[in-house]
């Protein structure tokens, strides 16, 4: 008897361990496989689904633990366990594909095409038609863009543009220079690549050391998939927006892979020359992302090119400290005067990535989830996730204009508050509009003039006055109309020559660009022609065709929409 009891006890303990190892530590209101219902008190049944978000790392949380997530739960009876990506997206999503086990809701980022190819997402066309009038309204002009070759919509991306608002602060690419440098040289305004590097040269010659460490003239981010921060540069210098690895002719709509173009040669030649003068960071091609950010935060770097959202961590740190002169200011640099810069994103619509409902959701679940998404697409909900609650996180003046008091600006930029309120989890990645609400207020508070002007501190104002501008984006040209923008969201079929090209080009550029830039200037020409002939062996035409086709299709849809609107 006694022996049996001991065995039973140990079995129980073992089971307990297994059970606790399998469950996660979040205190969700329902069980883990997500489909089970659970009586959630007064509001009736609350159902918890899993949402895997591959767009970036973050804290895993159940949406009902946030203020607005709780409101959504009360209104729709649905909440989500959000799990964020840790590590490599392709690997994680690849595992899901291979096992066929998906969370009910999935944002697969750059692996979206693969999930679609594997049949992981369910078509949303009928669901939207029947259950989601608000999504239909918000994405109205873009629904056609969202359709894949088979005519189905699988994912709902964020950012359906409604009207254009020029942002007050840079969010996109720019050539950055440390403010200290600008101040010392009497606030010069570089416009061309030559002028830009002349400033760096002048300052570095006068200040070989910053805070005891060697001054770094120009550094570059090249780590892993972020290599485009370097390879996109010639495109921007030639007056094109961030369309990825191709230039698109405004008239013929033909895509041109530009790595072998004269623009690229001209840009590399300049970097080669800059390197010869000792201004190019020798570690540009060996540092990883963290080392790059740390270097910029250290204040040793005079200038660099990057996208604001990519270098945000470093620039935010610099902005938060006491010293306004270690911040950086971005300029729209082009090859020569006469080229209109296109650094600001045009009104566009990225049809991928986005969130999709997977085959893990039963038909009933699909309807519940789409209704939840539709609830988010209501304009009043949109205001809740971008502005918050009136009287708490924003105010309305007598003209119906939204604004935030200084106190509210401070509260709403506090990470802890943003997490607990739910801004961090809902403001991007879910159905979202961009631009202006119907009442004329900006969707995003920082784009509202009333908020933006309050956000500048004394240090910012010094530079705004010196350059005689109201906002930092005033130096940048208005984006031209490019209905296909961005071209990089074109789906590339798994296993196609176009996909192979992307990988081979990446390898080739990563291998050859450092050689070309670090080469002795007298060897530049031979290095360049070497690269060019290697490039020509790649299936770049196949890639161009895929992009051209997609661009033309988008323009066609756009024109049809314009006509029917008239």
């Amino acid at each position, binding site marked *: 008897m006694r022996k049996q009891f001991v065995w039973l006890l140990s079995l129980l303990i073992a089971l307990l361990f297994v059970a606790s190892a399998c469950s996660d530590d979040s205190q969700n209101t329902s069980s883990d496989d997500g489909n089970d219902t659970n009586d959630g008190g007064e509001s009736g049944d609350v159902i918890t689904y899993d949402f895997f978000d591959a767009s970036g790392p973050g804290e895993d949380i159940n949406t009902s633990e946030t203020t607005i997530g709780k409101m959504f739960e009360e209104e729709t009876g649905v909440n989500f366990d959000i799990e964020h990506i840790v590590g490599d997206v392709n690997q994680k999503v690849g595992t899901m594909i291979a096992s*066929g086990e998906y969370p009910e809701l999935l944002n697969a980022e750059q692996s979206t095409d693969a999930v679609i*190819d594997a049949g992981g997402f369910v078509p949303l066309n009928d669901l939207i038609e029947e259950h989601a009038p608000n999504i239909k309204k918000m994405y109205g002009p873009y629904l056609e863009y969202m359709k894949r070759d088979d005519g189905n919509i699988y994912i709902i991306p964020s950012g359906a543009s409604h009207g254009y608002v020029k942002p007050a602060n840079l969010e996109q690419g720019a050539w950055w220079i440390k403010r200290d440098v600008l101040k010392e040289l009497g606030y010069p305004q570089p416009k061309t690549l030559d002028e830009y590097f002349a400033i760096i040269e002048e300052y570095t010659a006068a200040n070989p050391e910053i805070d005891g460490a060697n001054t770094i003239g120009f550094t570059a981010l090249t780590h892993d998939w972020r290599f485009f921060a370097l390879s996109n540069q010639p495109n921007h210098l030639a007056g094109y927006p961030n369309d990825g690895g191709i230039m698109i002719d405004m008239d013929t709509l033909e895509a041109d892979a530009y790595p072998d173009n004269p623009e690229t040669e001209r840009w590399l030649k300049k970097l080669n020359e800059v390197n010869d003068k000792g201004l190019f960071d*020798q570690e540009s091609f*060996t540092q*990883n992302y963290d*080392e790059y950010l740390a270097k910029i935060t250290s204040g040793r770097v005079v200038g660099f090119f990057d996208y604001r959202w990519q270098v945000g961590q470093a620039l935010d740190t610099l902005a938060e400290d006491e010293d306004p002169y270690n911040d950086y200011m971005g300029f729209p640099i082009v090859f020569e005067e006469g080229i209109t810069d296109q650094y600001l994103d045009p009104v566009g619509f990225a049809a991928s990535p986005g969130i999709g409902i997977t085959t893990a959701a039963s038909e009933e679940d699909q309807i519940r989830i789409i209704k939840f998404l539709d609830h988010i697409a209501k304009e009043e909900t949109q205001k809740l996730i971008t502005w918050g609650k009136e009287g708490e996180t924003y105010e309305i003046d007598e003209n119906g204009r939204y604004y935030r008091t200084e106190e509210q600006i401070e509260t709403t930029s506090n990470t802890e508050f943003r997490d607990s309120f739910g801004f961090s989890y809902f403001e991007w990645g879910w159905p979202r509009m961009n631009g202006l609400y119907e009442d004329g207020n900006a969707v995003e508070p920082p784009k509202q003039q009333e908020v933006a002007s309050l956000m500048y501190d004394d240090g910012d104002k010094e530079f705004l006055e010196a350059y005689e501008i109201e906002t930092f984006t005033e130096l940048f040209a208005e984006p031209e109309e490019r209905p296909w923008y961005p071209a990089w969201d074109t789906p590339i079929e798994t296993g196609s020559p176009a996909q192979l090209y992307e990988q081979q080009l990446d390898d080739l550029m990563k291998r050859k660009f450092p050689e070309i830039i670090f080469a002795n200037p007298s060897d530049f020409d031979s290095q360049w022609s070497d690269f060019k002939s290697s490039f020509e062996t790649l299936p770049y035409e196949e890639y161009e065709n895929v992009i051209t086709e997609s661009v033309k299709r988008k323009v066609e849809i756009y024109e049809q929409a314009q006509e029917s609107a008239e």
Partner: protein
Amino acid sequence: MASGSDIAASTIKKEKQEKGLKVFLRKCKEQQALLWMTVPFVLWVFVFKYLPVWGWTMAFQDYKPAVSFSEQEWVGFKHFLFLFTDERFLGVLRNTLAQSLINLVLGFVTAITLAVLINELSNMKFKRTVQTISYLPHFLSWVVAAALVSSVLSIDGIVNDVLMGLGLIEKEILWLGVGEYFWGILGASEVWKNVGWNAIIYLAAISMIDQEQYEAAKIDGASRIQRIIHITIPGMKSVIVVLLIMNIGYILEAGFEPQYLLGNGQNVEYSENIDVFVIKYGISMFNFSLATAAGMFKTVISIIFLFAANSLSKKLGQGGLY
């Protein structure tokens, strides 16, 4: 030893008189308890080592996930052709073999040397400290270790500082930016990370050596060095041979993490090995078939190496694994 083998020989004779199957069943019954104990492990081997071999079929398909086996498209040797005809494959193979050989040789020499040196220490406290410090890096993840290595080797890192201070180099060297240095850096990092850990098994082998041999040698007037050469090393020989054979089986497994984490555009011609190539062109392009084909290739080569090493060691009179 001699008496033991006599007994064994006599049992074999006895068994031969009975019939094969009967003996087998009798033995099974005798060793019932032991056999039951092996069941979970046999199952484990079967589930994790033999069942996955079925997945090799993927190498001959254009494998698409979530599509049933009968609907997969069969493409023959297409993926092997892609692998072997890619102009970079030879370079990749060269890197794999070179990195592996360097790791193998450095790993063995340093671990054995460290084990012998530790064994010669008489101060227990110092001995334990050295052992602990030397095997601690083994527990670091390569992600952390690679970050340490790359910061030590950066332009303003400690390696450049020391070399400049000693006047050995005139200008800082970007160690990870020069392809030719990569194999050396990799070998050194592997040694730093694993030498203490690898030495443990040799220390265990040394502790099995009969202390009387040392005493006898001492009385015969053998010096410390002579004792190491003639007693310690021969005493470890069987362990060394077993480990060598097993490691040669892994010759194409030069590792993946350090090469992936320390590799960059400037040293790619020396850092990219088969595993990194497979990640780039297989896994991350969702081309699972190519990844499988590369895996098959590696397995076949490994088996060849394993058999070769085993028979070589038997010929040299060291006894093989089987």
